[in-house]
């Protein structure tokens, strides 16, 4: 099977995934009854007239399947409806909050990649040395340290005890640092990015070191060394490129993990991102917002997985496409 056919098959599967999640969620929310009834379950004392007008306003009349297809048709046009609690277009909210989430996650994963490459090379080229064992132990501990606990420790240390970094929010509420939106934003990003970067570095280092140790033992490395290439080029040019293949597939998983646990990260740092928005939505049973946020998170996750899958087959032609 050719690469093009493989990619098409993955694309179709991804579309199925997204639709599958939307059906599960839609069915679940509607299993309780009409979204209006969900709202009423925790807000007694609303008259029938008001219920009628709400139903009209949010387009919640008709059968479950009718509503599902109306909703599905609308989200293709990036129209997620109107938030019941905030009375704002859900698509607008998702965009604003989504950017805040990416603002901490993308730098974190880039920093983690850079740092883990350096650490892994350091460890793998000195296999079974003190440095190597130190790196393995550190990475293992970092990998097991729950992200939110690290976040809490960082807040305690840098915000409460040293008082140098802010513990919550994306911007200062009163005075911006140095009166600059950019500097103030960066200042607030330090702790959440540090937490995410640390977690990702630990996991990536564990993987990359093992992979690098494996590659460095192979014949083509010996051949490269024998041909008189400087060690630096052997490691960074030849070994690292090959060691990166298993790590690449993991990047998608890691990104998914970060996105999936964004509610926790963003609760620890009171960060106004997609995860925090999602928590608010399910606490307040804001049905269009729950659907919208889940769909966006699923979409981002599926896209990340899809991209890594495709990158994988392009980079490594040995892979059997099955």
């Amino acid at each position, binding site marked *: 099977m050719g690469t093009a056919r493989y990619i098409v098959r993955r694309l179709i599967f991804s579309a199925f995934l997204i639709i599958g999640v939307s059906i599960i969620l839609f069915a679940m929310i509607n299993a309780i009854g009409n979204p209006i009834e969900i709202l009423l379950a925790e807000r007694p004392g609303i008259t029938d007239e008001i219920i009628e007008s709400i139903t009209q306003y949010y387009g919640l009349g008709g059968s479950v399947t009718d509503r599902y297809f109306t909703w599905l048709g609308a989200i293709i046009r990036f129209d997620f409806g109107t938030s019941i609690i905030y009375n704002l277009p859900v698509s607008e909210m998702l965009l604003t909050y989504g950017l805040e989430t990416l603002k901490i996650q993308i730098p974190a994963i880039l920093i983690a990649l850079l740092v883990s490459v350096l650490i892994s090379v350091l460890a793998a080229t000195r296999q079974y040395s003190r440095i190597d064992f130190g790196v393995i132990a550190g990475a293992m501990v970092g990998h097991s340290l729950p992200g939110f606990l690290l976040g*809490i420790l960082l807040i305690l240390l840098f915000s409460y005890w040293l008082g140098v970094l802010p513990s919550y929010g994306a911007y200062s509420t009163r005075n911006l640092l140095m009166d600059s939106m950019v500097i103030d934003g960066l200042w607030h990003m330090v702790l959440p990015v540090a937490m995410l970067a640390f977690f990702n570095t630990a996991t990536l280092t564990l993987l990359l070191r093992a992979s690098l140790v494996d590659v460095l033992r192979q014949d083509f490395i010996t051949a490269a060394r024998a041909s008189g290439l400087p060690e630096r080029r052997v490691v960074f040019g030849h070994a690292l490129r090959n060691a990166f293949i298993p790590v690449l597939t993991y990047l998608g998983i890691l990104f998914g993990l970060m996105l999936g646990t964004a509610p926790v990260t963003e609760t620890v740092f009171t960060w106004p991102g997609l995860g925090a928005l999602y928590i608010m939505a399910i606490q307040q049973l804001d049905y269009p917002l729950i659907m919208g946020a889940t769909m966006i998170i699923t979409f981002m996750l599926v896209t990340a997985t899809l991209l890594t899958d495709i990158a994988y087959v392009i980079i490594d032609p040995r892979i059997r496409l099955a």
Partner: protein
Amino acid sequence: MDSEATPTATLQAENLGSRQRPPGVWRQSWYRFRRNRAGMLGLTLVSLVVLIAIFCPLLAPFDPSDQSAMLRGAARRAPDSIHLLGTDRNGYDVLSRMLYGARTALAVGLGAMAIASLIGVTIGGIAGYAGGMTDELLMRFAEFFMVIPVFIVILAVVRLFGIVVVGTWLENIPNLNLITIIVLLGCFEWPPIARMARAEFLRLKHAEFVEAAVCIGSRKRDILLRHILPNALPSLIVLVALGIGGAILAETMVSFLGFGDPKAVSWGQSLFFNYEALKVAPWAVLTPGTAIFLTVLGFNLLADGLTDAFNPRLRQ
């Protein structure tokens, strides 16, 4: 490492003269595991959690639901000689809550992984043994669960299920919320186990001893459950150990976000109640946090050690 081969070699040498059976795969694995310092540390941590869970009524200085410190105006008190790890904002003794939390953590980890193993081994086993279209369909189904944002979906289901049960007989089940979380974790965390079970069943299907069993006319059930499954266990146990740690962490995160069981004495619940008072009473957050960290680390190290013990060749 070069030390890997030694224990087996010594054992074989010891057994040469006698008519004793050579040590079985489990015993051999244990000899290898014992040599693995990280694995032993993991086992120690896990054993500690188990012991605490069993003996917490004897160990805990206070009842986990004792809020009397609140009445004495001693809530959020720093660690002292009466409350060794201080009290939290609800007047609970932090140490006692931490010790009792081990029970909930283990119940979550074991319960979720029992469900996940049952689903995973069934689906993976059928896929691997049957092959063909069945295999393809079941594995696509498993992949679906691997790609969707499980944690996000669990949060929504826990919240919505909490509303569904209001007014039904289910409402009277004690710790219903916790049970929901356990079942959900089990229902969403099975795909890695299914994948491994499939690979193992596929590999063992053509093993000589399985073909021998087929030849002597063993029943299909016996072939699957008595010949293939026991040989697939080592690889599966590693995943289960990892999964227990993962499930405990997941429950903690669900509780930390406020969707946990308010009646359960769980570490995540303690984090949720005390996070707002982090600045005033950091011990009430750091104690359950450390407990979670050590438990998850313990299960991760244990799984790591088990991988090495069951597959000595991988190490070289």
